[in-house]
């Protein structure tokens, strides 16, 4: 079974490679390095969104507020950029952190299931975004974005900076997940929360931290989106929530917690993106795309899910 486990860990990657190969065989321009780089780069926003939530899902919760949080961050960025210059970036991300923190506190202190707690907080955050942006989408002047946001939109060594950023986040979060006590506790809580409590650990602190991290990464995603699109708006990140969660689960992380990792989410995001773009390449008509996407999602999860440690599937 140890063997099976080790194999299991590669399934998402295998699925990804298989998909890429299949699409490439159908239309080999898909393989062109330019194209692969583009797809890669375009996946990063999605990955950033999903990366933080992965921690929340690992502790067995869920964060439905990321979409509003990212939008809020983009608004903060666009508003404060003229005044604070680069300071706007940390400010926007901080906005995300605070929102995440709020969700975590509501869920842990009031003992409300995260599904509802974060849904509710998402409403609050959206109101805040509307209020901040005065119900407008705010443009980021090109000189501002060149001055401050070059690190997102530019290229380095012929590779789009989004990719570098994504890889950096992957590295940092994987480190956080694999090397730090926080990551250790996140895994532990997801697998057997009561044992962790009984071991004299303040479970709530870790949980709240996970939600805060989720908010923070949503904030980062918001900043990146704001930079790529040169604007901030309360609806900028719309339609991002479910795809983001799809990435996580498609990567093989268990929605019930305990089992998973960041790189799985990374691969999951690529899978989702490749499927979407792939449909355009294979020429699946716009009508069929959602149908195909839906079923591929289920199939992918069926394939990548690590059932070794999950007993009751709800």
């Amino acid at each position: 079974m140890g063997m099976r486990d080790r194999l299991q860990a590669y399934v998402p990657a295998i699925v990804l490679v298989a998909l890429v190969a299949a699409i490439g065989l159908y239309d080999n321009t898909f393989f062109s390095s330019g194209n692969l780089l583009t797809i890669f780069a375009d996946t990063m926003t999605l990955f950033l969104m999903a990366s933080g939530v992965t921690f929340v899902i690992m502790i067995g919760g869920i964060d439905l507020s990321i979409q509003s949080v990212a939008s809020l961050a983009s608004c903060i960025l666009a508003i404060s950029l003229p005044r604070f210059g680069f300071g706007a970036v940390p400010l926007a991300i901080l906005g995300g952190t605070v929102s995440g923190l709020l969700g975590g506190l509501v869920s842990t202190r009031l003992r409300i299931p995260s599904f509802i707690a974060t849904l509710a907080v998402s409403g609050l955050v959206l109101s805040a975004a509307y209020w901040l942006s005065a119900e407008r989408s705010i443009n980021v002047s090109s000189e501002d974005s060149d001055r401050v946001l070059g690190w997102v939109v530019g290229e380095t060594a012929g590779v789009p900076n989004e990719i570098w950023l994504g890889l950096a986040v992957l590295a940092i979060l994987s480190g956080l997940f694999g090397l730090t006590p926080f990551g250790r506790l996140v895994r532990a809580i997801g697998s057997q929360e009561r044992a962790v409590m009984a071991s004299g650990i303040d479970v709530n602190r870790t949980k709240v931290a996970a939600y805060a991290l989720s908010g923070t990464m949503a904030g980062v995603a918001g900043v990146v989106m704001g930079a790529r699109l040169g604007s901030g708006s309360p609806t900028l990140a719309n339609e991002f929530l479910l795809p983001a969660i799809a990435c996580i689960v498609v990567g093989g992380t268990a929605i019930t917690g305990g089992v998973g990792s960041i790189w799985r989410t990374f691969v999951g995001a690529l899978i989702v993106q490749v499927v979407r773009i792939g449909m355009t390449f294979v020429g699946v008509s716009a009508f069929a795309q959602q149908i195909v996407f839906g079923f591929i999602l289920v199939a992918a999860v069926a394939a990548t899910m690590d059932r070794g440690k999950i007993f009751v599937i709800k």
Partner: protein
Amino acid sequence: MGAVLSRAAVAKMPLLARWRNWAPVAVLFALCALISILSPNFLSLANFVGILNSAAIPTVLCMGATFVILMGSIDLSIEGIVAVSAVLVSLLVDNDVSTYSIGLLAVPIAILVGGAMGFLNGFLHVKLKTPSFMTTLGVGFAGIGIATTILGGFTARISDQSIRYLSLGRLLGLPVAAWIALGAVLLALLMQERMRFGRWVYAIGTDEMTARHAGIPIERTRILIFSIAGMFYGLAGVLSVAQFGQGHALISQGRLFSTVTAVVVGGTSLSGGVGSVLNSVIGVFIVTVLANGMILTGVPPYVQQGVQGLLIIVAVTLALDRSRLDVVK
């Protein structure tokens, strides 16, 4: 097979337990009281009818969703299934796109199609052993896609009065839709209280092992529940068409989260085993009355989501019996 009842639960005073059961109702009354103070119109019959109209479709949706959530599962395919059934209905009755005109016969068909998609949910979830969260998400995407494909993106305007009557008609001064919703509630209540699977849902939601030992066919029950939920969504699709006189793929936009919210605000626990369809009815009214009240009292549009968020937190804090779950996820 973990002891089903923690000692904490035993110590819990029944009195507190009873208050918990009534908390959602209390929240609803408090809300009504508050709004009627701020806006006397609230208590008018006209507004009552209006609220019933707005609550009808969410109520029907909740009847399905509640069973799924009582099992500890979740159903994200609501919008997709409603879309498909709505589009079908609008094409089967007198309309300006297709030539069919089978009138009320379309209703059972739509319900069955909803049931079929629900069955697909349950079947994939049980057979592929994929979490309901993802399975229903996928089927939901597919549903929207199918609905879009069938209509090619256009809207089918219906002229069939028999269908329109389901929403526009009045019986004893109340909208027919409200009566249908009431019917759905009674049916769901009958299922929950008087049919075997209705009781089994609680067993499965509380402790699948115990349920298994009692000889309950877990898989079959799960599939059945998802199918039944689908049928309720199908009915909701019919009502949507009746209400808007048209069917299109986005007819149920935004229904998913509002439904789950209503169920949970009503006091049904997302972890399963605790709750009831009646709770969900209360939940629907809390959400509907709030939306209605925010407009009556002139809450500015952009803070409305915020207010709703706060109320959800308050309601759930009061209503949810969290003493039983020592671990909150």
